[in-house]
């Protein structure tokens, strides 16, 4: 039964991935449709980021470092920083927040 579930989800997921590449052109080709789809993609990524941060900040001690790190990373990302720079900014802010918390209490 486990194989059946994996194959069913796999086939379904593949169809979700492949169908718009072949049958969507007529419906998705207009500039308006392309704009809406691009906005939906941005929304999907933002939702994944927010829920990932929420999971990471689930404990009291992780809360401040997580959100400070996210703020620092977002600042660099919006300015067009590379992924490595965004990660470095987030890591530095995270480490600084932990260090500050350790010093305070």
């Amino acid at each position, binding site marked *: 039964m486990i194989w059946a579930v994996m194959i069913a989800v796999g086939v379904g997921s593949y169809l979700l991935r492949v169908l718009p590449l072949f049958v969507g052109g007529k419906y998705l080709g207009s500039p308006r449709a392309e704009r809406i789809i691009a906005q939906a*993609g941005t929304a999907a990524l933002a939702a*994944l980021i927010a829920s990932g941060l929420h999971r990471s900040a689930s404990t009291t001690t992780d809360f401040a470092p997580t959100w400070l790190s996210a703020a620092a990373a977002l600042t660099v990302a919006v300015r067009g920083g590379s992924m490595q720079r965004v990660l470095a900014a987030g890591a530095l802010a995270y480490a600084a927040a932990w260090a500050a918390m350790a010093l305070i209490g």
Partner: protein
Amino acid sequence: MSTVAFAPSTERPSIFAGVRSMAPMMVAYTPYALVIGSAVARIDDPVAGWSGSWLIYGGSAHLAALKGIGDGAFAMAIAVALLVNARLLLYSASIAPRWREQPVWFRLLGAAFLIDPTWALADQHAATGASPEAQRRFFLGAGITLGVWWSAMIAAGAMIGDRLPHVGLELVAPICLMSLIGTRVRDRSNRWAAVAAAATALLTSHAPAGTGLMAAIAAGVVAAHVSGRWSR
């Protein structure tokens, strides 16, 4: 505009540019893959559970399917996992215009590797004006690299099982995704889409798997539409 350093637009290095661009993502997704691996270790047939790393190729949906299997709710496992993966329809629809000139074999193969980071990287790379062939090589380099790594790390997680320590690296994946969304939110409507979607995702964090994400996407699209009307 690009947030990831790409190689010059010569054809052959595009494969390596794809591999190189994916490297930080591999680090970012490793803890998540290990967590999924530890869930795989807990079900009756770990090999079948691991096969989802290639068949499903999506962490949240894979985890949702494993949870349903663990609860003995097989039909629910399929429904929830597909709901979680419904966003792939958007990714595919969004990349479709860029892949219109690609050969059929590539669209059939490339579709199997479409997931959040590969879609975002491919979209960015295409926006640099790369030729269809360069885009194809870049995507295959990035997609296959992530796929092999992802599957290997899930296998490693399954072998480590419940001995997996809490490493506190859950933060790395959202930050990597942030670098892919950063320049998009300079545009007003995309910014509203991102803010509304993020707020809705936080508000619906306890909603059943997948439904919160779909609500967040819908809220983002509506917010972008409203902001577009206001700016006219």
